[in-house]
């Protein structure tokens, strides 16, 4: 009885630990997904070509990242800028068009230049969570500092991009530029 009880306790601890671990990773991407939605509050896409003024708020993900699932979960019933959110997964750079936010997964390191060149003068907010991506030209890049999620903004690229970023966002971000 007592042995079974101990086994049960041990199993429970292990299970809980696993749950905590998985919860942590899920929590991280969920937070990132939430932040991506919040970014939309600080970006002004209006005043640009009608092509981008669709009835959906479109977030595209290029490459593989747990963020895709997190985004789908987070924005299943939630709107951004009073628009229903559409999550698109793309693998071909040429398909990048008419989207509001492009999440660049860390596995795009090889064709990052190409992606940047394709988006830099367009009203597309590029977001990534890979070290060094900001300096390559991604507008907002997540990083972990002291166990908290933070983001950096490439101000040079923001100014190049065909969109307006609220300067309030700079206050909570690390500002970078092109290397």
């Amino acid at each position, binding site marked *: 009885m007592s042995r079974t009880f101990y086994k049960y306790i041990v199993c429970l601890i292990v299970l809980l630990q696993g749950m905590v671990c998985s919860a942590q990773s899920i929590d991280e991407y969920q937070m990132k997904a939430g*932040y991506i939605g*919040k970014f939309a*509050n*600080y970006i002004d896409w209006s005043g640009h070509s009608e092509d981008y003024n669709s009835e959906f708020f479109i977030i595209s993900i290029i490459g593989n990242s747990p963020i895709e699932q997190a985004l789908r979960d987070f924005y299943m019933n939630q709107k951004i800028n009073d628009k229903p959110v559409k999550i698109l997964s793309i693998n071909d750079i040429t398909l990048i068009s008419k989207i509001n936010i492009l999440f660049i997964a860390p596995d795009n390191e090889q064709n990052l230049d190409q992606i940047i060149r394709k988006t830099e003068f367009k009203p597309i907010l590029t977001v990534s969570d890979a070290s060094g991506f900001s300096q390559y030209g991604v507008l907002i890049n997540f990083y972990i500092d002291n166990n*908290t999620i*933070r983001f950096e903004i490439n101000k040079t690229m923001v100014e190049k991009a065909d969109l307006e970023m609220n300067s*309030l*966002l700079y*206050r*909570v971000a690390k500002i970078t530029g092109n290397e």
Partner: protein
Amino acid sequence: MSKIFSIRNKLIGIILLISIVSYSLIFILVYTRNSNEEKMNFLQDNKLHAKLIAEYCAVPLDFNFVDEAEHILSKLKVQTDILNVILVDKKGDVFASYVRNTQLSKFHFDKTNETDYFTDEYLYLYEDVLLKDARVGGLYLRVSKDILKQNLLVYTKSLLLILGSQLFIVYFLAFFLQRIITTPILTLNKFAQEISNKQDYSKRLNEVKTDETGILYSSFNLMLNQIQKRDEKINTDKLKLEIKNDEYIEINKKLIENNKELKIAKEKAEESEQLKSAFLANMSHEIRTPMNGILGFLDLLKTPNLSESKRSNYIDIVNKSGDRLLTTINDIIDISKIDAGQMIVIIEETDIIGLAKDLFSFFLIQCKEKGLRLNMEILMEDDVYITNTDSNKLNSILTNLIKNAIKFTQRGSILIELSLNGKYYKFSIIDTGIGIPENRRKAVFNRFEQADLDGELAVEGSGLGLSISKAYVEMLGGEIWFESKENVGTSFHVTLPLNN
């Protein structure tokens, strides 16, 4: 007039009082208005801070960056009057907080009170934390009112200083400008006092002002005119009265003088009447007696067979009576001449010692006949003493005096004395006769008076002798007087100037 309540001080006092009242009102108004404004400014300033903080905190709150929020709040250290800040999230839970000084009393914020309000010590503020017009949280602030209080104190002090200096300026202006009003009044006052003291209503004020003071001045001058006119009239009347009074006094004087003259005239008239009566009585006696003697004895001489001795005696009596009559008539003529001013004085060189000696010789026989001794004393060293005088009149004077002496002396002696006395020479005729009674002495030199006219001792004589003598002495510039004692004798003295 008390200095404290002088018109000048009253004026300054009134101006100051008005100034103080109005400045107090201004102070209250301005202070109330400005303290409210200051309070509002203070509120607005801090509200602005709150808004800024809220704006800064909005993003960290949005992204749940607590450390970022606290970092922002920590920058409030430069705002010394912000004591506490509490940032709450949408639900009202504390997200971040800031305390300026941990020793401060704990800041209990009221979740339900999302307004701004003042307490005695603090200003409590609430500000919504908004992001794109959506409330993401709230901000509670507690602000120290020290700066506000200090500002108000400084403001009050400077306001009081300004008002005080204005009051000072007002005092000075009032002090100097009150003269515009007080100087004419004080001048009038001084002028009135001067007039009152000197009683001089001829002065006038210079009428220069055209305001009420000017009217007062001209009224005052008008009044002075009236007073002066009245005074002049009174003075004229007075003068007239005085002149009339003088005239009356003059008339009165004249009347008194006239009265006196009348009285004297009356007295003279009475006197002359009396004299006339006495003269007539005397003369009738003096003329009738010798005339009777002459006529009576002339009748007796007609008697035949008259003895030679008797006839000789009768002729002698007629002769004597004729002499007596002649003397009387001469006396009357002399006195008439004197009275008429026709008596002439003839001055010639005369030896007075010789004159005295001649008189002595002349009267020596007469005295011997009457049994009297006649003596002479010349109290001079020379034998001859020549002086200028009317010798006839001097002779007449002395003859008269010696005759009188012989007439009124029954026994004893008669002394003729001559002496020098300075610029005068003096004749004295001294007898041992009956003397002059006391009650007669005054009238000795009057006409027709004798020592005892009515008495038994009355002797013959016109009574004009001494009167004539006195008149002669006075003509020659001398004096005549006498000393007498009844039954002892009489001394007559005559002094005459040497070298007349």
